[in-house]
């Protein structure tokens, strides 16, 4: 399951992903500092104009101050503009890098992960979580720096103006410390809860929308909504809890400000009575003190964004940190284009204590067709996953042309060994787009060729829009058989050395069935094929049949030999024949 990552790991990832845009962030910080300094220069210029000009009835200093002010005012829009552009570019690129890293990660995760984790959660990690980071990486990060600078400079001004009064204004400090401690104590949990609720809501949505036809067919619209609503409400409640955490921090600010002002004015009054402070100093001090709480207020509001951002980032990093099924070895080599496929004492279990495949040894000559048969749970599918290196064996090894799959470059592995699953999953887009799913560089001629080779070109080319026909959502415009044909065409285009075929159990109408059979026969020609056979007629055609039971290979023979001497296999075969005879056509 996905965990949220610890703060240290989150920062490591954040730094890593931010590296390419570091320069822009630094530029944005510089622009913020410049525009903050311009803002702060205003009162100083006014002071100069008053003290040197207005009080002395001298126009020249006033003009000078006004001229400098004008110059700074003219600079400010450029600083702001630079800040916006740099921070936006840095932030958006950061988010882009983050979501592509998360998408890449999907490809590296083991298949088991997708069985445990609901699709909605994954979609929410890559969309909603990333999006909720926008404020944080674009504005908060940069603005916090500006606010912090303003706070520091104002505090410095207070200290210069009157150290005793500055000390008095510290009465606000305990209030601030207590409230921010209380905020940080609860904010993490509150914002993580929001992200969790968002994921749950999106999951419910995703499932209801993906299964909308079933929901409607069984008129369960109301119940589906009833089951979704509490989750949606839980998200509202999570936000409310977070809002109560937030106000601990920034609602207290005005009180802290009032406390500081009251303390300062009380002390200032007595200092004034004793003649130890001028009225000008008091006025300036109070003005600065009021100004100080402005950036503090903004600072705390950004902190809210910050906490929310950290929570979302932790969720995404949690996904990035999930263990990969397999890793490419640094000294990986290309797999040879052909060669013998050898399994040597291969043992594997998803859980190390319960092997699903036990000490399987097999040698498959190039171009040989092997059928794996056995009851559900015998380990056929798991063996297929090992052959395509979705997982690595816990013991033993699998080699193609003498190269251990673990030593192969992943790209060459995916090129040489492909898995053809039974369902023909389509992406939205055209038929051609779907055929070139794994080979985006293939041109139209290649696509037509692949379809031609498997004998399916005419079927698709004769559609009104030909290969440019939009298959629509999940390929509903195409029949199951046609979707399988597209799947087979993908493999024909990929031109692999080894095909691991999870045989379609579905019975198509005989016409399409024959087309699919022909397509398969064409695509397997001259390649090594391992078929997870659901039909014994497939086994009949294979060069060799491997019977699996309880994770072990129990018999390996050609079909005829097996039929004569095999026990389990003969039983399976007999029951199949009996089934045909009992209800068959003749």
């Amino acid at each position, binding site marked *: 399951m996905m965990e949220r990552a610890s703060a240290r790991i989150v920062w490591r990832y954040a730094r890593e992903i931010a590296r390419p845009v570091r320069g822009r962030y630094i530029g944005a910080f510089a622009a913020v500092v410049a525009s903050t300094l311009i803002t702060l220069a205003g009162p100083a*210029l006014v002071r100069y104009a008053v003290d040197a000009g*207005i009080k002395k009835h001298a126009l020249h200093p*006033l003009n000078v101050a006004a001229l400098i*002010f004008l110059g700074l005012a003219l600079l400010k829009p450029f600083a*702001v503009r630079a800040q916006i552009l740099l921070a*936006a570019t840095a932030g*958006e690129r950061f988010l*882009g890098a983050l979501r*592509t890293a998360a*998408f*890449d990660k*999907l490809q590296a995760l083991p298949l088991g992960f*997708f*069985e445990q984790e609901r*699709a909605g959660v*994954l*979609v929410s990690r890559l*969309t*909603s979580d990333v*999006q909720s980071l*926008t404020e944080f990486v674009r504005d908060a990060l940069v603005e916090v720096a500006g606010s912090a600078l303003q706070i520091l400079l104002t505090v410095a001004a207070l200290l210069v103006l009157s150290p005793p009064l500055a000390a008095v204004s510290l009465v606000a400090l305990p209030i601030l410390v207590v409230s921010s401690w209380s905020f940080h104590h609860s904010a993490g949990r509150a914002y993580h809860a929001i992200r969790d609720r968002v994921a749950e809501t999106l999951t419910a*949505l995703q*499932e209801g929308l*993906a*299964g*909308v036809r*079933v929901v*409607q*067919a069984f008129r369960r619209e109301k119940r*589906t909504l009833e089951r979704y609503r509490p989750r*949606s409400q839980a998200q*509202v409640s999570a*936000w409310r809890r977070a809002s109560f955490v937030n106000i601990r921090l920034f*609602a207290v600010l*005005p*009180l802290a*400000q009032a406390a500081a002002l009251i303390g300062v*004015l009380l002390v200032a*009054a007595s200092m004034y*009575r004793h003649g130890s402070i001028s*009225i000008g100093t*008091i006025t300036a001090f109070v003005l600065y003190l009021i100004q100080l709480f402005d950036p503090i207020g*903004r600072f705390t509001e950004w902190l809210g964004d910050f906490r929310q951002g950290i929570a979302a980032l932790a969720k995404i990093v949690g996904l990035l940190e999930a263990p990969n099924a397999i890793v490419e070895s640094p000294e990986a080599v290309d797999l040879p284009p052909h060669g013998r496929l050898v399994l040597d004492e291969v043992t594997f279990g998803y859980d190390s204590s319960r092997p699903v495949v036990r000490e399987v040894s097999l040698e498959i000559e190039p171009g040989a067709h092997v059928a794996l048969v056995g009851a*559900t749970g015998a380990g056929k599918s798991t063996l297929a996953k090992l052959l*395509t290196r*979705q997982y690595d064996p816990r013991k033993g090894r699998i080699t193609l042309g003498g190269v251990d799959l673990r030593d192969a470059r992943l790209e060459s*592995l*995916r090129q040489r060994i492909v*898995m053809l699953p039974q369902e023909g*999953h389509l992406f939205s887009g055209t038929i051609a787009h779907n055929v070139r*799913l794994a080979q985006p560089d293939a041109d139209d001629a290649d696509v037509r060729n692949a379809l031609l080779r498997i004998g399916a070109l005419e079927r698709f080319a004769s559609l009104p829009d030909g290969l440019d026909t939009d298959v*629509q959502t*999940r390929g509903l415009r195409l029949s199951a*058989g*046609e979707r399988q044909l597209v799947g087979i065409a993908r493999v024909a285009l990929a031109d692999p050395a080894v095909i691991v075929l999870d045989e379609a159990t*579905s*019975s198509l109408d005989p016409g399409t069935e024959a087309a699919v059979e022909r397509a398969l026969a064409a695509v397997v020609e001259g390649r090594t094929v391992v078929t997870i056979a*659901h039909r014994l007629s497939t086994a009949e055609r294979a060069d060799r049949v491997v019977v699996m039971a309880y994770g072990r290979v129990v018999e390996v023979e050609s079909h005829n030999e097996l039929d004569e001497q095999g026990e389990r296999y003969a039983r399976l075969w007999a029951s199949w024949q009996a*089934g045909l005879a009992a*209800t068959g056509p003749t």
Partner: protein
Amino acid sequence: MGEHDARRRAAWKFVRAVIRSQLDGVIGAALSGLLWQTGAVAAPLIVKYAIDHGVLMQDRHTLMLWLGGLLAVGLLEMTGGAVRHLYAIRNRARTDARVRDAIFAHALRLDASYHDRVGPGELMSRASSDSEHVARMMDAIGHTIGYALTVVAVAVVLIVIDWRLALVVLIPLPVISVSAWAYSRRYHARTERLQESWGEAATLVEETVAGIRVVKGLGAGRPLAEQFRARSDTIVGRALDIARLDAAFMPVLEFLPLLGLLAVLWIGGRRVVDGDLSYGSFVAFNAYVAMLVWPLRVLGQRVTTVQKALGASARISEVLDAEPQLHEARHPLELQHPRGAVRLESVRFGHEGDPPILDGLDLEVAPGESLALVGATGSGKSTVAGLLARLYDPDGGRVLLDGHDVRELRLSDVRRAVALVFEETFLFSDTVRENIRFALPDADDAAVEQAAGLAGAAEFISQLPEQYDTVLGERGFSLSGGQRQRIAIARAIVADPAVLVLDDATSAVDATKEHEIRAALATVMEGRTTLVIAHRPATIALADRVAVLENGHIVEQGTHAGLLRTSGRYRALLALEAAA
């Protein structure tokens, strides 16, 4: 342009509806926002009086009085600020939920033909990402009103102090705000485009996750990652298009108050020197114009927030305004005890732009009779199934259930009478038990187990880690296609429909296993109108009658055995010529 205006109008209408639906929250946020900024505006004034009348006059009593006032104002600001924040977050979260709930509820009402076009990824993106923009607008209301008040209050104070100087300082304000509003309209279209690219990215993620087995098996990960990178880059590009608007627009807003300060300094300063303006007024002007900086900046941002919300609203109302093609009759007939007489009369159906799939189809199934519908791929068999359950309406002709046009019947009655088992099985992330009693949540365990038994699913369910309490994923916790189909059949059996439609429902069941459940199917079909769409001769043979669908209509009817004897076409269709 016309379409663009229509979208804008729809967006405005939606935004108004959202505000109206949360009027209490909006008013609460506005009032607390006023309170909050009243405190903020009053505090400097009170400090001024405390200094002038308390500190300078060395009047301890007056000082304490003003300091008490300062504390009161601090408390006021604190309370107002806290309440404003609570309202802001409440408005935000509730808006988000309302938009999302409305989209979901409406999507469940929209019929199959809409969902054929618009996939779950696209709808999810509108229910989460677009709703977020509208929610942000609602979040900002209290803030915005508070800051707007500050600007107005400051303007009034300035005019009272010295109207001539105030005029110079304030004149750019209306000019800027009007042009800002006009300029900000550009955010609308750009936001829509950005949101569109988010939708496309979400769709790709959704499809990749849904088809992960195919993706991994084929090694399509890299090209898909390239595709995703391209869509992600589009998002970055379009987000930066908006940032470029910010970069043109925001600096102007920052510049304006500085011009005001400059005017105060130079014009005001000269007038002080000339003795035309008091020094106190000069100081006050400085303080107050400085107070405008932050509110003006925020107000400028809010203009864009509203425009972004409008852009997102246009996309949301696109979904909410989509009309279901299927309408329940105004006064629907009830169908209490369906007998299950099914009749299709000259039914025509086609996807827009394509040649019709069904063209003058006539078909009749008597109550309790079972009919196998046979035809080549694409002959429209599944369309017939969808028409019976009224997932679609025919373009021409009628579909009759117990003698009534299904369009005149209550929709829920039709769907209760007709249970559909799809070829593509969709299971929900829930226990096996809940999945089986999906259509009838009150069904007891015995009924669930009986249905599972009839569907030939009891055996493998008993081997699952937690039997009927095992939680399945959408794609079914490691269940094979055949096992999932058997659960789907059990689901239909629990519904106990008058008409059962098995649309290739046993296609993924192992041939050997199908043999086992065939007897069970025969029991289920007994006394129940059943339409079987299948290809295996043994399954077809279960039906009383067979109808052959070709070129959009029924070309032959008869018993399986009879057609086998007499019809070459039928034998060819079942590819038995060679086998026989």
